[in-house]
């Protein structure tokens, strides 16, 4: 008797220990969200102990032998088993599945470029979507990416509730999508109702963040150009800012080398005091012809001997001085202020910001077939600005004979399509870009950090590298264009039968049957 009583308490103890272990395991797993060894061990040992308890109980009571117990236990075990089997089958089905996109234009399939890129991801990449609502379409696209590779992750974040995360990314607006890989972050696009997450943009950003190509910028030297050092006329601040943007910079002396290096993304020619040699001009010309890019910063009063080259682009340099007498106390008449930036990728974010150009020359363009020229820096209109030819005279006065009225163009961005018949073997460039600014002072130490001057320089270099364009050419997904043309008869049949005939048949049959049964 005593032994049985002792066993009973022992049994109860077992039961409670088993239960607590299972619960503890479940809670640990749920809280840490990691079903590692500890929670699993707790749960399994708990189940084992409960099993022991069942065995012990069955020895001391006839409860186990009752038929109803047996039946309900059988039912319970069978149900649990079926649930487990179904769960396992579904688990396997999600791991090993066959998926086919039956839409004609493969609307829900990633382009091969995207697939390949995602499949080759070596380190985790995460997409952050900062939006209040989760758009199912965006989610579907991101899910498609993730199915290719578990290294690709995504998370929807409501910037209102998790502003700490939003702050970290510098989110300014709802719908911003960021890509993160390690420490690098990049804005992909801003999604809104009409502009959903696009595969084209996402894959291209992915490409950029995975393979950050470091563009190489060469500064021509040897003709009294602006030095790259920290002197007053130097450009060390500009060079440093380029370095921060992942550009590599190097001086280039074309008298020592016969051609521009093939790894040059941009060649900067900043205010040569003496003209370039013919061979050097030819080297620059060849460089441009194979898809090279040039940033020219030319002060007035010097002749770089580039006129032949520039005339091919329809560019003419003016040797007059741009003056601005709009009354700016801080700068004086020899420092034109620019607040009008036209419409161009270089200057699109500038708004009405200020940049200034001490001792600048205007630039004129004439249309040339194949060259697309966009003015990016425009001074104020006459009588505030004009191009002054007489620099000896103390009194600044507009002279109809020799001067030119504003507004003057101080900077032009040009791009020229490369001729198709001269394919370059090494590069895949299809165009060549050039930015000409009639001043170099704005980018020298001191001026560089003021107002928008530095941004004008950096954006010009960045545009000229041709790297902001989409590197992967993925065609956006479009559905097939198709219409339904219904004849009046068809429309009538559909409307009439669906709203009248069919329901009436149903109700009439119901009524007749009800009548008959009655």
């Amino acid at each position: 008797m005593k032994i049985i009583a002792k066993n009973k308490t022992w049994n109860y103890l077992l039961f409670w220990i088993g239960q607590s272990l299972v619960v503890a395991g479940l809670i640990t797993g749920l809280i840490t969200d990691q079903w590692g060894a500890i929670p699993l061990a707790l749960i399994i040992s708990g189940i084992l102990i409960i099993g022991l308890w069942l065995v012990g109980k069955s020895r001391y009571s006839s409860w186990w032998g009752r038929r109803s117990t047996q039946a309900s236990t059988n039912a319970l075990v069978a149900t649990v088993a079926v649930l487990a089997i179904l769960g396992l089958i579904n688990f396997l089905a999600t791991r090993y599945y066959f998926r086919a996109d039956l839409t004609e234009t493969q609307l829900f399939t990633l382009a091969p470029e995207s697939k390949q890129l995602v499949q080759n991801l070596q380190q985790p990449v995460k997409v952050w979507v900062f939006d209040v609502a989760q758009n199912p379409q965006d989610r579907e696209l991101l899910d498609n990416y993730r199915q290719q590779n578990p290294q690709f992750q995504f998370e929807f974040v409501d910037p209102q509730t998790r502003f700490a995360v939003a702050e970290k990314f510098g989110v300014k607006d709802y719908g911003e999508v960021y890509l993160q890989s390690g420490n690098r972050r990049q804005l992909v696009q801003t999604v809104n109702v009409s502009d959903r997450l696009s595969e084209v943009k996402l894959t291209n950003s992915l490409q950029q963040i995975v393979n950050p190509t470091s563009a190489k910028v060469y500064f021509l030297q040897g003709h009294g150009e602006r030095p790259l050092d920290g002197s007053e006329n130097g450009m060390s601040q500009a060079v440093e800012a380029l370095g921060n943007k992942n550009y590599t910079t190097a001086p280039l002396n074309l008298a020592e080398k016969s051609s521009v290096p093939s790894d040059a993304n941009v060649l900067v020619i900043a205010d040569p005091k003496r003209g370039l040699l013919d061979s050097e001009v030819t080297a620059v010309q060849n460089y441009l012809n194979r898809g090279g890019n040039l940033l020219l910063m030319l002060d007035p009063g010097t002749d770089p001997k580039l006129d032949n080259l520039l005339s091919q682009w329809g560019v003419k340099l003016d040797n007059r001085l741009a003056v601005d007498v709009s009354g700016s106390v801080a700068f004086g008449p020899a420092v034109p202020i620019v607040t009008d930036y036209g419409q161009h990728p270089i200057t699109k974010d500038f708004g009405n910001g200020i940049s200034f150009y001490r001792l600048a020359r205007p630039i004129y363009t004439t249309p040339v077939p194949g060259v697309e020229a966009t003015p990016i820096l425009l001074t104020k209109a006459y009588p505030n600005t004009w191009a002054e030819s007489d620099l000896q005279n103390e009194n600044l006065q507009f002279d109809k004979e020799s001067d030119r009225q504003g507004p003057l163009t101080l900077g032009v961005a040009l791009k020229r399509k490369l001729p198709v018949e001269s394919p370059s073997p090494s590069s895949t460039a299809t165009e060549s870009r050039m930015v000409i600014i009639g001043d170099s002072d704005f980018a020298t130490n001191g001026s560089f950090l003021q107002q928008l001057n530095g941004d004008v320089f950096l954006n010009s270099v960045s545009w000229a590298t041709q790297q902001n364009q989409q590197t992967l050419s993925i065609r956006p997904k479009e559905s097939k264009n198709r219409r339904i043309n219904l004849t009046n008869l068809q429309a009538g049949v559909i409307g009439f039968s669906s709203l009248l005939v069919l329901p009436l048949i149903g109700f009439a049959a119901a009524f007749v049957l009800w009548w008959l049964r009655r």
Partner: protein
Amino acid sequence: MGVILSNVIAIYRRELQSYFVSPLAYAIAGIFWFLAGLFLVLILMGPDGILTAVAAADLQGQQFGVPVPPIDVPYEFVRAFLDRLGWLLLFVLPILSMGLYAEERKRGTLELLATSPVTNWAVAVGKLLGVLTFFITMVVPLLALEAIALSGSTPAMPPIIPLLGHLALILLAAAILSLGMFISSLTDSTILAAVLTFAVILLLLFIDLVAKNVSGPIGEALGHLSLLKHYNNLIQGIFDTSSLVLFGSYIILGIFLTAQSIDALRFQRQ
């Protein structure tokens, strides 16, 4: 095996016959046809319908010389219609499934079924097939109307996506009916069965929303349970075996649980 099959067929025939002489079934069909027809007409030709919207966009494009982005009208139409139909099922199917066992229980014929030599799951399969056949019969006239609408599409639309969409509709209906059948076997009140079924289906449809806010593998697993997600996948034209397996699992689970619950009946009454 042959015996079981003939048993299933016998139950199936009995069940089907009862539908075609039941005024309630015809009334449900009438309501279903009216609502589905209303959706069809509104989606296709209504004031906010797809034909009207596309015609307006085309006209605008012509006036301003702006190219209209390509729209696959028949595809959008089938997708939108099947989407609304999926919601309609939510209300119609519980009414179809509520009487499957509850009615038998009320009439006292459930004991006969439970103790008959026909196995419980054969009965369940027969009943499910019967009610599913009735549902398919309700869908067929709609299919004919859709076919008329799609016959006007230029250029012609390949039938694979509408076919897959309707297969998904039938699978969704089978899964819901199967679970409804189990719930119906638990109670002798048809109304309670309908309400419970409605609640359970609503939960299974909306589990996706819950899953979106849960991260990690648990959220993924929950999201996978959602009927709506898989239905939407299929009607969009994405053929996915894991979706088919999920629908199949719900159907089998419903049949199994029904058989278990009838089995339990034998011992409760002892």
